């Protein structure tokens, strides 16, 4: 029997980066932008946070000052948000203002972002001339991974619900908030209108450009936090190149799996997080190690099946936003 009190926390910590990524992408796609640059944005978010934390720790060790919890959290977070925001602005400038093809722009952003992350991850020490062997941000990451002090005294309840760093809870809060905004508010209604039919939204007096910029940039900032969570909390502040892997693409897959609903994304991301590591828990025996590789396929197969089923059933509320992937030019209606 698999021990749920052990498995669920592992699934959650795997799921949180996916939740950030997919919440960000859902907001983006609701405005009609299919941002395939999310994997790149998450790398940039992660490395920007790492750069911020790195210089903060360098500063600490030079001046000999005591680490300050507030600064240790806000500096990497602000750097991460700024980095991801710049990526979002770049995407919007190219696709909304210059009306470039969204797929190509997104893929270029992923090439750039992953390269940016790995380059600075691998060369930061050399460039800054610091005297450390590798990027291991133990001081700042301690603040990110700190859980409630009484969590481990509460047995299984504590380990399932209370054993995470604050960014995990923030992810869930953001997803709930995004779901409420999308479903219940006027802003959400306008945003959905822009994604479904920008021409109609425009003639109803909604500022299409502003909504597209806003949703995409906020979406990128949320996705960037996923990268930050991964490196500062899950990986304990240790940067290793390509460690983040294909989680960014999985986050995009999750958007389809959740049929564009951030509240479903909370559970779906934990499920995907579980699927991502389930191969470690299915006994294969030493004779059949190859089967592990097939179990790793499960999240992608499940996503593909969901994608096909939603298109087969053709229910209107389960469809992608109607203008997803298309640029909008007022004079071309």
């Amino acid at each position, binding site marked *: 029997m698999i021990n749920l009190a052990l498995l669920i926390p592992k699934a959650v910590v795997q799921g949180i980066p996916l939740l950030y990524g997919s919440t960000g992408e859902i907001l983006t796609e609701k405005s009609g932008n*299919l941002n*395939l640059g999310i994997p790149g944005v998450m790398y940039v978010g992660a490395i920007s946070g790492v750069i911020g934390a790195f210089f903060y720790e360098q500063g600490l060790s030079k001046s000999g000052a005591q680490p300050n919890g507030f600064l240790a959290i806000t500096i990497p977070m602000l750097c991460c948000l700024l980095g991801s925001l710049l990526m979002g602005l*770049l995407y919007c*400038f*190219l696709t909304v*203002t*210059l*009306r*470039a*093809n969204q*797929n*190509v*722009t997104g*893929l*270029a*952003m*992923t*090439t*750039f*972002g*992953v*390269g*940016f*992350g*790995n*380059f*600075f*991850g*691998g*060369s930061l020490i*050399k*460039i800054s001339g610091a005297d450390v062997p590798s990027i291991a941000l133990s001081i700042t990451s301690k603040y990110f991974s700190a859980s409630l002090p009484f969590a481990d005294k509460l047995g299984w309840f504590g380990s399932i619900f209370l054993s995470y760093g604050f960014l995990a809870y923030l992810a869930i809060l953001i997803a709930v908030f995004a779901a409420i905004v999308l479903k219940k508010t006027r802003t959400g209604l306008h945003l959905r209108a822009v994604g479904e039919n920008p021409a109609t939204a425009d003639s109803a007096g909604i500022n299409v450009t502003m909504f597209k910029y806003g949703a995409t940039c906020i979406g990128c900032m949320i996705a960037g936090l996923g990268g930050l969570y991964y490196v500062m909390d899950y990986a304990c502040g240790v940067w290793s*190149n390509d460690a983040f892997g*294909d989680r960014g*693409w999985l986050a*995009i*897959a999750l958007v*389809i799996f959740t049929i564009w609903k951030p509240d479903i994304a909370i559970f779906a991301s934990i499920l995907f997080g579980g699927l991502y590591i389930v191969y470690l828990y299915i006994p294969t025996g030493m004779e059949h*190690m*190859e*089967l*592990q*590789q*097939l179990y*790793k*396929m499960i999240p*992608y*197969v499940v*996503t*593909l099946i969901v*994608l*096909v089923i939603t*298109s*087969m059933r*053709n229910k209107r509320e389960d469809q*992608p936003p109607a203008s997803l*992937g298309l640029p909008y*030019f007022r*004079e*071309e209606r």
Partner: protein
Amino acid sequence: MMKTRKHEPLLHIVKRDSMSYKKAVLIRIAAIVAALVLCAIITMVVTGQNPISVYGTMGVGAFGTARKTWVTFQNVSILLLISLALTPAFKMRFWNIGGEGQVLMGGLAAAAVMLKLGDKIPNPILIALMTLAAILAGGIWSVIPALFKAKWNTNETLSTLMMNYIATQLVAFFTVLWEMPKGSGKIGIINQNTNAGWLPNIGGEFIGSKYLLTIIVATLITAAMFIYLAFSKHGYEIAVVGESVNTARYVGIKVEKVIIRTVFLSGAICGIVGLLLVGGINHTLTTTMAGGQGFTAVMVSWLAKFNPIIMIFASLLIVFLSRGAGEVATNFSLNQSFSDILTGIILFFIIGCEFFIRYKITFRRGGHKK
């Protein structure tokens, strides 16, 4: 009551009817030059080298020795082949971003034939079987999303993306299954002693003979694709379906058939790339064999406006940058990902410059109107 605007806006964007070919090319070249200047400045900041010697170093990395030059052209050929493969699908507005997976499946099929029938049948038949298997595997892998698209209009960008990862895991599965020696997690060089199923070196004993086959295949397929798209009936049907599905239906084109046929072709060429990588270049199978080129090829194909001839130059530019930046990175003990940053910058500039080709900006004339 609507508020009336007092001022005419400063900028006004108008769609161009058409632009002379020469001017469009000039704009693109200007964008590439601007991007290269920015790349040089960034390299200068990171390495402290002056921009002219940066490009000198990059030139050495790509064309420094005869061997390096051959490898550069081999890499250009592979990237070009994948870009060509994706092009007919893109022209039909079928966003096949599954090149990565289709290449892997082609390679997997070729490797399977190579391993299982290696010494049992004569070499020419073996190679023919490998080719057939690779073409079928790549083709089938791309047709699966195409069937979904034709039947239920399933979003192909997302389904081909998923197929990439399923293919990666399949290759990982077989890598462990066939690993040599046991426990290494790698297949190793296939048929190292007999060379069974290795694609032939062309031209006898000279330095380029190892690389020539890939380059010849790429040249032939480039020419064939150019003719297929520009002059064949199939090429015309692809263009019509891409412009408007309804028009295509109206003139009696079977849209589903065209989608599936074209996407099969797309996957089949990717399968050939898998064959070349496994049988001709690496002689082994790894999950990272395609190395992200399935995604790079999407951009190459799009940047070349789906024109096979321009694709040669686009691939050359990308490969030059990546090999050149690799050399810069090695010289300054920086990370190899440096080339991705430079590639990204170039792409952003070219993507952005398209705007100035399709639209023109007119400024407000004669100051404020009252």
